[in-house]
């Protein structure tokens, strides 16, 4: 589904942040992306989301060469990839419901056509009672679940999560992990960037370890 071959990336004239990175993300797979801070996890996620172009190497996303994807095609491709950020990135002036429905709203869909889906998803992530509340009054865990729901509303083929448990306590982290696993069982490939060893130890999944810009894979 997504393939990296000898990918390298440098910012400006600096040294390479990523070096000769090669891996595949098969459909319905589950993997952790880990490594020390500054190893390049977020940069790799940005490459996966097509927010950056590699300096060298080949990236293929859903069968298309990244270098040949036009700016017009990018948003359409991105709709097949859900992203969850450590800092949630919810819009404070929109309700939880509106934040989760945002990906559908920006496609110009009529609200009546997706209202029920959004409500059901909010109930699934345990936010059924909080759907008309604004993000500033949500707890950290609730914000993270809202951010996950927003990433899932379009049933993406791939879910990228950047330190999704970084701002929550261990019980909630376990609950969020179960949510990701449930989602994976339903058919979405999941990539979780984390350096939380306890979290990784709970699942027998592939580990992609970034060290100094190089990637090692432990199946």
């Amino acid at each position: 589904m997504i393939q990296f071959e000898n990918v390298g990336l440098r910012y400006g004239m600096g040294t390479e942040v990523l070096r000769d990175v090669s891996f595949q993300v098969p459909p319905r797979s589950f993997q952790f992306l880990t490594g020390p801070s500054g190893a390049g996890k977020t940069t790799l996620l940005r490459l996966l989301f097509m927010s950056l172009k590699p300096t060298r190497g080949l990236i293929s996303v859903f069968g298309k060469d990244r270098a040949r994807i036009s700016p017009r095609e990018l948003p359409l491709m991105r709709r097949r990839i859900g992203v969850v950020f450590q800092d949630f990135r919810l819009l404070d002036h929109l309700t939880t419901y509106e934040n989760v429905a945002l990906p559908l709203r920006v496609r110009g869909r009529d609200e009546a056509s997706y209202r029920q889906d959004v409500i059901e998803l909010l109930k699934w992530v345990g936010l059924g009672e909080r759907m008309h509340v604004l993000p500033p009054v949500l707890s950290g865990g609730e914000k993270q679940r809202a951010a996950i729901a927003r990433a899932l509303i379009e049933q993406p083929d791939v879910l990228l999560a950047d330190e999704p448990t970084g701002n929550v306590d261990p019980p909630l982290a376990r609950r969020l992990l179960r949510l990701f696993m449930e989602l994976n069982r339903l058919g979405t490939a999941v990539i979780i960037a984390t350096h939380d060893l306890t979290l990784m130890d709970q699942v027998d999944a592939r580990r992609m370890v970034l060290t100094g810009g190089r990637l090692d894979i432990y199946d």
Partner: protein
Amino acid sequence: MTEIAERATALPARAAARRAPTPIVPAQNVAGTALIVVIAIMTFLSCLTLGAVTLVRDSSSAWQTEISREATIQIKPGDDLDMDASLVAAQGLAAGFAGVRSASIVDEDATARLLEPWLGTGLDLDELPVPRLVIVTIDPNSPPDFATMRTLLAEQVPGAALDDHRTWADRLVAMARTTVAIGLAILGLMLAATVLTVVFATRGAMDGNGHIIEVLHFVGAEARFIAREFRRHFLLTGLKGATIGGVAAIIVFVGFSIWSSANLATPEGDQAAALFGNFAIGFTGYAGVALVAATVTILTGATTHVTVAAYLSELDGRQHD
């Protein structure tokens, strides 16, 4: 934050009544209000400058027309000169020219009144060698042949000289043109300052919305959708500011116009009217105000579009293209 919390508690009840979706770009914030104020002030100042230039241009044009509407025949007294006969002869000669509407002799009483400020009352013109005047009213659209009139007067009326005010009119035209040119230069500077202020103020207000562009980008919104949402919002902001500034300028113009009408017969009013006419900026002035307001509004929208496009380009990592 308190405001947001209050809104949050009120929302479930409101949601039940199915409210309209919240705009993606928040309706108003501090930066947005400041932008409206900046746009209003710059539009107001630009419109005032435009109005002032219009006023000076119209007034100078009126002065020129007034002066070119009249000419004067002056007859200097001489030892053997029959002044009355010369005046009648000059009047008859001038009136016979095509392009002359009328020629009237300034009688002794009127001449005495003209000299009153310098020579006092009770003046006996027979005791002084005072020149006498014939006022010639001209059709400004087809003026008479002044050169022929001057030659014939010199030949037929001794002591007569024609003053068609050309020297004075030429000086006035030069002065008026300079004044209008200076006014236009100031207007140009003012509009340039407005453009730059609006551009930078809009970009400043946009800075606070970077996170919204980023989120829309990450949820797969197309660039044109994001640009449209922001352009719509900031066009409205620009329109509000420009309308406030334009309307304030029109109120000032109308206020001056009313003041000048109310003071028509007073010395202050006469003085102002002598310089600026009746203080009305006319259709051109009002059309100019509308044009300035429209330009500022469009400029705000265009700046927003360019800023969003630049931000998205940065997010898409085009530096690696």
